[in-house]
């Protein structure tokens, strides 16, 4: 058991450092910014799912008074790139051009116009004449991989920058496979074999703030990009390449962000707006409408999953065979890594000697998949979580017992960690911590599992409980890196410059707490800036559940160095050895004679104005060899209306091991938010398309999401462990809990009414159909 550690600020739910400014409306988002003579940009988008542009004529639009610049494929550099904001070189194919002669889905970019007003820009769009040669589209990923399917990326210059399998000539955007042990032999050893298919659907991030960017030239004619992004440094690098500008000529500023959930790990608007600014030499604002946000940004990749497993009567797993066909949509950002994650974040959870995994990603003429909280694990945990329940049922074991029997434990590794990385091999990793047993026990108790499991309802509305176990990672090993700078002010306060991007998660607060803990001050003594590529040090950005674990460590190391410098200065002032000094509540004091003391303000003043002057400051960087998984056990109680097919979640319990929760309220908030997001996705969210691939419901009227009134009681239980490689024992928490609702609800529905929901979403009609089929089968 980890011993109890006491901290001053870590582990306490201090208020968010940006809380007051957000609540009072003084917080500055991208749009809260006016520049003189700013132009407004709008984009012309393809009405066709698949077409070639025969002719495009912008002359009439250009003549419209108030129009200052128009971009099409004719006047922008043709640079193959990916919009995925990932490390470099990216594991995603370079299949995207700022504008192209070809359009590949309804909503694809055709042209952009910058004008004095939005109205003029809109008018100009209507004056652009486009002559399309309409091509056959393909919407189904299975069909896309057939021999005679239309080829979506037939351009010769699309390529993968890493040595990975990429075959656009047959619509294959990515492929990955691995085998450990001998799966066929494993199936032979099994007492029970299961083989089922599952599918997950499109989902929208539905951030309140749509994608938005403002670009302008500074006094040195450098391009400044103020943008709602999770990845400022990747924005700088990718825009520099696409616009053929040196990195030194670009500055990216991340203001407050109105929600992202992975959707803003993409460089969708920055290069277009930047190109318009370079063309017009004027500031330009480009913001997407809600309709564009739904149709033209990124989504959760739909997956078709087949999972085969073998299990012995005693509950031990003999083989797992997971194969996935993922729909990339029209372009391939994250096409490889999301599907890799579907394997690498699910398969290691269970001890199994024989494991096979195959992932294929196909292009289709539909909206583009991308990073979305959970990142492939959400899809695959649906299949894994349901099939584990099916196995437990098949051998007559209570699911909590079954999970406990099979899950990975501290001290153990999994060959899957090594076999599957992100565009390259993974890393060997042994777990330092795993609190899953405690999560299962505490969660089961909180939902009264054993009582409720025994109940069998007979009426119209029937209740049931279900559970699932989950894991995720903390940062991408051997790829991600983060850095932070801390400087001391004359009054003894500090400035923390973080490359890490707080996108509403509260990471500025968590990082401030980490610095404050080391420097023995309160968080109001830490001024946090995140992020500005000119002023804050490098950080890959907010994704892969990396910020607390990785950026947190960078902050911790920087703070430790600053602390050393403070002690050194104080030792000079107090005429003693640094090792004899300690830092307590803004004061440096002698360990024995505590009356020998100086305040932090004294230290700062001395170091800046008095003797042997230097600026107390440090920058530290952090990378990682491992990605310690957080773990969780989720429990759902549902009520199924057998006449309408409606599912209501009555109660949801999530017990999560995230190591040390630096700020418990924020950790619970991440958990609750992810669960609401996950339940909404499981039950009601749905993209509807017409026969020609146009999304029919790109608005909140018909793409419903949960609001406060729909949210069931959620109980988040934080189960502490101590991860020695994380800051103060912390692991991640941001993504893991979105993986729970699909399988937990499906399993609870099985308990309630005996139907297995293997295809999401669980809309009332779908559930009622399943109940009908069950009735029919029973009669036969």
């Amino acid at each position: 058991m980890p011993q109890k550690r006491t901290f001053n600020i870590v582990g306490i739910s201090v208020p968010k450092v940006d809380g007051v400014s957000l609540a009072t409306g003084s917080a500055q988002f991208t749009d809260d910014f006016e520049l003189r003579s700013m132009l407004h940009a709008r984009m012309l988008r393809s009405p066709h799912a698949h077409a070639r542009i025969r002719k495009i004529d912008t002359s009439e639009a250009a003549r419209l008074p108030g129009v200052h610049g128009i971009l099409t494929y004719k006047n922008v550099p043709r640079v193959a790139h990916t919009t995925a904001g990932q490390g470099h070189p990216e594991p995603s194919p370079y299949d995207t051009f700022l504008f192209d002669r070809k359009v590949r889905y309804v909503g694809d970019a055709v042209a952009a116009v910058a004008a004095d007003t939005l109205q003029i820009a809109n008018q100009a769009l209507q004056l652009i004449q486009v002559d399309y040669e309409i091509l056959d589209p393909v919407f189904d990923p299975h069909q896309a991989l057939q021999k005679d399917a239309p080829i979506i990326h037939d351009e010769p210059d699309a390529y993968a920058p890493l040595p990975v399998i990429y075959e656009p000539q047959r619509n294959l955007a990515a492929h990955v496979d691995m085998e450990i042990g001998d799966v066929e032999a494993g199936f032979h050893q099994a007492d029970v074999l299961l083989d089922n298919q599952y599918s997950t659907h499109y989902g929208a991030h539905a951030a309140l703030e749509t994608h938005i960017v403002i670009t302008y030239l500074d006094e040195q004619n450098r391009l400044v990009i103020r943008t709602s992004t999770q990845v400022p440094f990747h924005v700088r690098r990718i825009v520099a390449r696409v616009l053929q500008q040196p990195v030194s000529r670009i500055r990216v500023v991340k203001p407050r962000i109105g929600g992202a959930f992975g959707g803003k790990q993409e460089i969708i608007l920055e290069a277009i707006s930047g190109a318009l600014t370079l063309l017009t030499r004027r500031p330009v604002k480009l913001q997407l409408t809600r309709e564009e946000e739904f149709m033209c940004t990124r989504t959760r990749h739909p997956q078709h999953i087949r999972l085969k497993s073998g299990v012995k009567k005693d509950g031990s797993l003999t083989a797992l065979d997971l194969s996935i066909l993922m729909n990339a949509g029209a372009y391939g950002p994250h096409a490889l890594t999301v599907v890799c994650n579907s394997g690498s974040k699910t398969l290691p959870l269970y001890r199994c000697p024989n494991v096979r995994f195959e992932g294929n990603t196909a292009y289709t003429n539909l909206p583009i998949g991308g990073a979305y909280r959970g990142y492939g694990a959400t899809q695959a945990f649906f299949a894994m979580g349901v099939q584990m329940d099916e196995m437990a049922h098949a051998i007559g074991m209570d699911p909590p017992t079954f999970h406990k029997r099979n899950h990975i434990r501290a001290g153990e590794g999994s060959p899957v960690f090594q076999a599957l990385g992100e565009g390259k091999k993974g890393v060997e990793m042994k777990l330092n911590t795993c609190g899953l047993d405690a999560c299962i026990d505490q969660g089961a108790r909180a939902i009264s599992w054993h009582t409720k499991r025994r109940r069998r309802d007979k009426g119209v509305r029937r209740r049931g409980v279900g559970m699932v176990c989950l894991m995720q990672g903390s940062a991408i090993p051997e790829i991600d890196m983060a850095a932070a700078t801390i400087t001391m002010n004359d009054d003894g306060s500090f400035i923390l410059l973080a490359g890490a991007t707080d996108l509403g998660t509260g990471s500025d607060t968590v990082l401030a707490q980490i610095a404050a803990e080391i420097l023995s001050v309160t968080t109001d003594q830490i001024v946090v800036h995140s992020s500005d590529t000119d002023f804050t040090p490098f950080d890959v950005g907010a994704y892969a559940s990396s910020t607390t674990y990785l950026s947190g460590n960078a902050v911790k190391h920087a703070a430790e160095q600053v602390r050393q410098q403070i002690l050194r200065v104080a030792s000079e002032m107090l005429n003693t050895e640094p090792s004899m000094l300690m830092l307590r509540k803004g004061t440096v004091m002698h360990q024995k004679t505590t009356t020998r003391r100086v305040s932090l303000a004294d230290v700062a003043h001395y170091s800046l104005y008095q003797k042997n002057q230097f600026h107390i400051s440090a920058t530290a960087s952090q990378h990682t060899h491992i990605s310690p998984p957080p773990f969780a056990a989720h429990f759902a109680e549902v009520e199924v209306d057998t006449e309408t097919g409606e599912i209501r979640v009555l109660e949801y319990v999530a017990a999560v091991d995230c190591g040390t929760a630096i700020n418990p309220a924020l950790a619970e908030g991440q958990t609750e938010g992810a669960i609401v997001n996950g339940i909404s996705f499981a039950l009601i969210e749905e993209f509807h398309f017409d026969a020609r691939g146009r999304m029919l419901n790109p608005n909140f009227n018909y793409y419903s999401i949960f609001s406060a009134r729909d949210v069931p009681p959620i109980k988040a239980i934080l189960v502490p462990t101590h991860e020695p490689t994380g800051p103060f024992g912390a692991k991640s928490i941001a993504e893991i809990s979105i993986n729970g609702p699909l399988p937990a609800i499906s399993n609870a529905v099985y308990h309630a009414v005996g139907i297995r929901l293997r295809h999401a979403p669980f809309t009332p009609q779908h559930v009622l159909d399943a109940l009908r089929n069950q009735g029919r089968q029973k009669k036969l």
Partner: protein
Amino acid sequence: MQQILPKLTEYFRPRSVATAITLLSKGKGRRVPLAGGTSLALSTSRKITGLLDLSDLKLRYIKESQRSIRIGATAVMKDLCKHAAVDRVAGGVLQQAAHAVGATPTRNLVTVGGNIVQLFFWSSLPVALLALDATIRIQGKSGRRSISAAAFFRSHPKRHLAFHELVTEVVVPKTSSSCGGAFIKFARTHTGYAMLNVACVLERRGRACHNVRLVIGAATALPFRLRKVEDLLENAPLTPSLLEQAKSMTAQIVKPVADMRADPEYRKEVAGVLVKRAIQEAWARAAQTQAVSGGRKRRPTASRKRKSSGGTA
């Protein structure tokens, strides 16, 4: 992206209904009443050049008389939700319908007049008003007229209301305590647009229902009465098999128009289920009302409650 009311140049805030009607008449159809604005705020109509703000017409009221409740056209959903007299009409069916409109901020804006004139297939209030046999009062340049909800919703109100006409009031007949009612909205979320709406009002006499009125909304462009099902239920003892009959008969009658969220077949079936439930709920409410007013013990509590909430009206 289209501009909202691109041709808008005039704004009026008349202080009397008469002035409002004169202004509307002079507008020749290019000026329209502005009530809660929740739907006008999204209008991209190029025809509209002027808005007539109704908020100074003193039409935001709910008045109780012996026989009826008169609701002014600019009373908002929130007003209906918290009004004791409204709550007592047919087991609170109107209140339930008002509560089904969007979320709290929406209910603070949406007016009775706006909700019934700007009829969408999923609109809530019209369904309840049809079931309650309400009357709509209209005033125009040639005077006042009153028409039944049935006539008002026979075609889309925007089709038959003249451009110079204003809905001024909705009159809902009071019901006896043996009358119960229920409104059920079937949607993906609490605040979402209905995929089906059902309202039921009935009187309970002994074991049988009387004067049953059943309305279905959101299945088709206009809400409609289920007369055949009403006839089936009339004067019949409410048995489980009768309810099942009502359910399957409804499923046969209702022919839902396409809705991407669910197949017509599914919605037909659910319409039957909802009708059955609405009847059960209305029945149960009627019983409760009887029990409360008849039961000696509970009478003081009930009347005190009525008094205090009546005071806020």
